[in-house]
């Protein structure tokens, strides 16, 4: 590899050609501050508009200061990162940014995790000259079912725009206006609700300030917990246990399943269940649907559409409902685990414990913001009573635990309640990209071939590449699996399906890069993709430790079918566990 030698702050270094000054400096242990820059290396996502100008440094022979995030090292370059000129420039630019930013840090939802606040602290800003006559940007606040936009706090880092357009290809957000009045938002500065937004929350996940935050549903949950007439049931998604610890200073990738369960019980939830149970249930329904379609397809039935697409991800469902409404019969009709759980909890379980569904409140803890929207969908309620009442994110749960004075680090591990808390390893891996399809294959293989799998780890389905594919041998029948995470990658596969070019039998799609572990409701990764990788590793560790790792072997699932549902795909299953899709664009246009 061709390399270049240069000097940064009097230290020599040799780096591969094409390396930026920022990265070269990092190798030398020189941490140049950045604000708009974000590099999720493993996910192939990079944001460097060169907009904030915080990362500037002096390059000998150059007229002006160089943005180190986007200036490549050249042979013989002499770089200084902390001269008086650089420090003054950085401070002045920071003062500019702060002069157009509200100072209500104390009551900002991002306080403590705000990158702008950290930068102000790091640079030791103590005053903002001219603030008394400085005009500030003013925009109205917008609250959608999942996301709150407070554009006054936008610093034009463009991360959300990049996520929404380049990564997710959702196109709900764009920079608008120019100059001082420029900001990022939906068309016509409308509410996000009337846009193509899928509520995937990736904009929130990357926003460095309080401009984009989630809607907080903790107060409603607290109210339900304090209502003696309500039985409050909680379910926790697989990805939550792999990330919650980060909020309490634990290493990324620390599994806190038992501590989380204990904390939830301490918070006062009557039943602490696991969404993983519903994930196993999903496999039964979705797997059955896959095998049904596949066998009909193999028999030449033209009405059996192949590939089948997974449908557990609500961001993904919102996406194809908006952009591919003509293909709404392609994805599986199986509800997401969250909604399956809600439906089963408020029917089977409510009956079992002898209470009316109206007296039960189902709360879900999700790594996701789209789940907030999903549980509010009309079709997921009975007579106006939703199957899942409130969905709160991993971050909201962490805040709730802190407010309740619970020291999660020192709690003893506890187990989930039975029966909806029992799950297999297949349910756990739903949290990482490729996990759903791997779980499905474990079950589908055994049912399709009637043989036992001797190798449960389909490592060929794992990884962080945006689009992956593998062909599995189902006893002579090749099963072609496609996996996409990130909606932009999903779009590629979907376009192939649309134009009849797809060769896949089944495709798994997760809206968020990395799958649910990289969800919009997770602790903020602040641009460190190592964190996402560590969470994935944790998920697979949990899977390995489980005694049962195939959904169809979950005894409580078997029992549920025996006692209540009959068999997968039965009429009752269809009624409770399956759904249908809409043309969402039409719906939005009518509503608007």
């Amino acid at each position, binding site marked *: 590899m061709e390399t270049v030698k240069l000097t940064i702050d009097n230290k020599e270094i040799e780096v591969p050609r094409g390396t930026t000054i920022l990265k070269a400096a990092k190798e030398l242990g020189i941490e140049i501050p950045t604000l708009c820059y974000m590099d999720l290396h493993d996910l192939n996502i990079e944001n460097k508009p060169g907009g904030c100008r915080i990362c500037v440094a002096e390059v000998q022979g150059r007229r002006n200061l160089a943005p180190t995030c986007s200036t490549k090292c050249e042979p013989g370059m002499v770089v200084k990162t902390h001269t008086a000129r650089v420090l003054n420039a950085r401070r002045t630019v920071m003062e500019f940014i702060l002069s157009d930013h509200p100072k209500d840090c104390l009551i900002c939802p991002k306080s403590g995790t705000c990158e702008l606040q950290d930068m102000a602290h790091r640079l030791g800003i103590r005053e903002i000259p001219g603030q008394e006559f400085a005009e500030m940007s003013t925009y109205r606040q917008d609250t959608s079912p999942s996301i709150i936009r407070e554009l006054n706090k936008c610093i034009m880092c463009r991360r959300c725009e990049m996520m929404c*357009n380049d990564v997710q290809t*959702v*196109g*709900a*957000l*764009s*920079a*608008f*206006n*120019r100059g001082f009045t420029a900001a990022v*938002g*939906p*068309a*016509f*500065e*409308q509410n996000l609700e009337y*846009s*193509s937004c899928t509520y995937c929350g990736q904009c929130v996940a990357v926003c460095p300030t309080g401009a984009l935050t989630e809607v907080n549903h903790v107060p409603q949950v607290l109210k339900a917990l304090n209502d003696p007439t309500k039985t409050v049931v909680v379910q926790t998604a697989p990805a939550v246990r792999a990330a919650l610890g980060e909020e309490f200073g634990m290493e990324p990738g620390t599994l806190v399943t038992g501590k989380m369960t204990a904390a939830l019980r301490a918070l006062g939830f009557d039943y602490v269940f696991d969404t993983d149970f519903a994930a196993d249930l999903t496999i039964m329904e979705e797997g059955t649907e896959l095998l049904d379609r596949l066998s009909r397809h193999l028999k030449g039935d033209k009405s059996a559409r192949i590939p089948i697409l997974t449908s557990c991800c609500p961001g993904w469902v919102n996406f194809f409902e908006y952009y591919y409404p003509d293909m709404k019969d392609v994805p599986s009709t199986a509800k997401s685990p969250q909604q399956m759980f809600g439906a089963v909890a408020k029917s089977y379980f409510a009956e079992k414990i002898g209470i009316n569904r109206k007296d039960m409140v189902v709360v879900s803890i999700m790594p996701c913001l789209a789940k907030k929207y999903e549980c509010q969908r009309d079709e997921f309620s009975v007579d106006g009573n939703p199957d899942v009442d409130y969905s709160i994110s991993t971050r909201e749960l962490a805040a709730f635990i802190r407010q309740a004075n619970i020291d999660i680090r020192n709690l003893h591990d506890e187990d989930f309640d039975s029966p909806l808390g029992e799950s297999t390893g297949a349910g756990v891996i739903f949290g990482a990209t490729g996990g759903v399809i791997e779980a499905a294959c474990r079950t589908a293989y055994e049912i399709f071939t009637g043989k036992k799998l001797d190798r449960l780890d389909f490592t060929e389905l794992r990884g962080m590449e945006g689009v992956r594919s593998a062909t599995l041998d189902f006893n002579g029948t090749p099963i072609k699996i496609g996996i996409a995470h990130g909606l932009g990658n999903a779009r590629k596969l979907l376009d192939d399906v649309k134009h009849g070019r797809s060769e896949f039998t089944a495709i798994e799609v997760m809206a968020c890069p990395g799958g649910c572990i990289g969800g919009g409701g997770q602790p903020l990764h602040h641009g460190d993709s190592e964190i996402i990788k560590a969470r994935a590793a944790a998920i697979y560790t949990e899977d390995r430790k489980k005694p049962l790792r195939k959904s169809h072997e979950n005894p409580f699932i078997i029992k549920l079918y025996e006692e209540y549902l009959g068999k997968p795909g039965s009429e009752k299953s269809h009624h409770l566990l399956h759904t249908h899709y809409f043309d969402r664009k039409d719906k939005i246009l009518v509503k608007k």
Partner: protein
Amino acid sequence: MSSIKIELRKEDVDFIKETCSKFNNDSQELINVLHGCQEHFGYLPAEVQEVISEYLNVPVAKIYGVVTFYSFFTMIPKGKHPISICMGTACYVRGAEKVLEEFKKELGIKVGESTKDNKFSLSSLRCVGACGLAPVVLVGDKTYGRVAPDDVKGILKEYE
């Protein structure tokens, strides 16, 4: 946000469709398409942008981003006689600001607004390149050169 809501007629939609197809429905031609539509409709209401989004396959947020970036594009219909005062440097140093003030006073509106009867709208623009005639005022297609504040009443009278 645009406060004006309009219902597009079928021929309007057809016009947008034709304009887009004239440019091969190529998203790279967005600005040319917007020019064509603004020339036809006089402005670019949200509904028009939504239809363009459909045919050019560009998210409507992006179109809005482009429309609000360029000062030539407007989402507000102009008055019957749009008045533009050149605020280029040459006109400015020759007193364009005073002329603008006079128009504001006479019409009782601010820059970017239209009179109640929608007869006049007022805007300022940057250099029409007729610096020899500074200060310059445009009313519709007609150019007035070397305008003094005292001339304003007379100019408006022409359109009564």
